[in-house]
């Protein structure tokens, strides 16, 4: 973004949130379930 353009800091947001700091909190719901093994038997294989 060009420096002379008015930006989000001019509207009082001094420290905008970085995507990597926040997005993992809600993307975790898409996390694939891990493998479940019980007594050397794979109950749920890795996806």
């Amino acid at each position, binding site marked *: *973004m060009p420096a002379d*353009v*008015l*930006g*989000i800091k*001019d*509207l*009082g*947001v001094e*420290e*905008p*949130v*970085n*995507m*990597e700091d*926040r*997005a*993992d909190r*809600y*993307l*975790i719901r*898409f*996390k*694939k379930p*891990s493998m479940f093994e019980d007594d050397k*038997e794979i*109950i749920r294989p890795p996806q």
Partner: protein
Amino acid sequence: MAHASAVLKPLSSLRSHGGRSSVSGATVTVFGGTGFLGRYVINRLGKMGCRVIVPFRGDEIMVRHLKPMGDLGVVNFFDMSIREPEQIEEAVAGSNIVINLLGKHFETSRWSFQDVHASFPAVLGTICAEQGVDRLVHVSALGASASAPSAWARSKAVGEENVRAAFPETTILRPAPVFGDEDRLLNRIAKLSRAFPLLPLVDGDALQQPVFCDDLAKAVVEAASNRDCAGKTYSLCGPKVYTNLQMAEYVFKVSCIDGPCRLASSRHATPRHATPRHATQRRMPRLLAAVRPGDRRRQQRRRLAASHRDGVRHRHFYPAQPLAHARYSEDADSGDDDACGCTRH
């Protein structure tokens, strides 16, 4: 002039944080309040004790989550259509701040980009000028340009011109792609990655600077409450620049999906908003079928299609899956049939 003096106090009191039970005296009409950004904007307005009017179309179930964002009677809903100027006038009447968050990502048979992005801002600006509204905030998009290849971006640029011509003191906000809990940016990548074996990534080298939804809502409220913002245009971006490929890889990393081998990037693909959504959807199954012909999901789709033949859903019986607890009952079955204790046996 009496109207102008009446709105001075409410606007200055917007800067206070009295809480949801406080009364700031300001009345704010938020068009597009039922959308992604709308809930964050209304939440912030509710915290300041503003009376909020939310024009909406559709079912009331789409707005019920907004009701607890303010005290009793603070968040009001108004069922209307933006095709009816009289209804727009009624929604704006009595408000000293109007925020336009309306936007569409795809056209439908009833609503074109021209209707929503270009024509409505012109009508809204005219009505706000007639009604003596003190502040009008119009949320456009960062890529808005009259020379853009995308019809979506061109219509956004026309909307900016129209609203500025009708209401010169409009504050125009041009946000970058927004991320947040309900976004269409990262959630779409994650959903596609789970549903399909590859991600058709359009122009992986394209740069984006996503902005957080609550930061954007804070900026919208600041633009609405600050008279110094009148007549200005702001470009709102996040702190860091990503390529489309980096964003997809980040989503893959968070959701533990195997890495770049699943990406199918195309530099010469059609721009995001230039193709009707249904055309992309039509091509998608063919593309996926060509990549993994024996995929389990493809078989599931066939089964589903077969079960819906003749337009009637036929009952389809799948082979019974072994139950997890059945493994633990093997020893019991050898001795006593009822030892499992399960009603299925």
